[in-house]
């Protein structure tokens, strides 16, 4: 069950990343025809991210301690000391960015180049940071594996 909780947060995070890229491309071609879709995808990204954050937070508070012990005793202590420690705080910035996305999407993107530029930067930063978080999560998982294999 623990593993399902963990995997669901990864799935939701990747969903958010994919939606951010989708939104980026859609905004590049913003028009009255796709405005509603951009706004819908922005809200969907925010929902996915909030779910990922809450699920991850639950898992982190109640289940991560065991994994942390394994990582710190294994050959990859940096998987916790740097990668988890940075991830748990960088992801808060990601949450803020994704929460902000629907606000930025509420402008008339079809009519305003400035509004589109804001959306492109925000969705671009979301995609970049989400990718980094996915990578950090992979390293943390490898840290657990390395620690277990070393036993």
């Amino acid at each position, binding site marked *: 069950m623990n593993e399902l909780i963990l995997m669901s947060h990864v799935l939701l995070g990747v969903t958010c990343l994919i939606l951010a890229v989708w939104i980026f491309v859609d905004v590049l071609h913003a028009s009255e025809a796709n405005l509603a879709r951009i706004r819908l995808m922005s809200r969907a990204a925010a929902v996915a991210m909030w779910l990922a*954050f809450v699920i991850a*937070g639950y898992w*982190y*508070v109640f289940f991560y301690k065991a994994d942390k012990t394994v990582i710190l005793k294994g050959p990859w202590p940096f998987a916790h*000391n*740097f990668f988890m*420690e*940075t991830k*748990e*705080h*960088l992801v*808060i*910035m990601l*949450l*803020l*960015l994704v*929460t*902000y996305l629907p*606000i*930025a999407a*509420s*402008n*008339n993107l079809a*009519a*305003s*180049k*400035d*509004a589109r*530029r*804001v959306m492109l*930067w*925000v969705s671009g*930063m979301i995609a970049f*940071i989400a990718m980094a978080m996915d990578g950090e999560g992979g390293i943390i998982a490898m840290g657990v594996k390395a620690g277990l294999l070393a036993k």
Partner: protein
Amino acid sequence: MDNTGISKYTVSFGLSLALACVINGLMVIAKESSPAVMTGMQKLSGHHWVTHSAIVLIIFAGFGWFFARARGGRGMEMSASRLIRTLVSGVVLGGLLIAGFYLIGD
């Protein structure tokens, strides 16, 4: 909506986001450097990270609302370029504070 085509909420919450990102980074340094701060944050909610997240989210929402009410409710005026620069700078600085601390300072 002002002439730039971006709403006052886009500006206000954008500024608030930048501010919250920097404060997020500074809070990491504060709680990791001070056992008293860490203990205090732990006691508030049962886990330091939960307290940390809640504080940053409250700052984001609170300042976003506050900035939107500036200038008699018209919100803060800012060009899109300046808003984007502020946003990106806040996110980058916040990230550098966090990564830099754990890489060098911890």
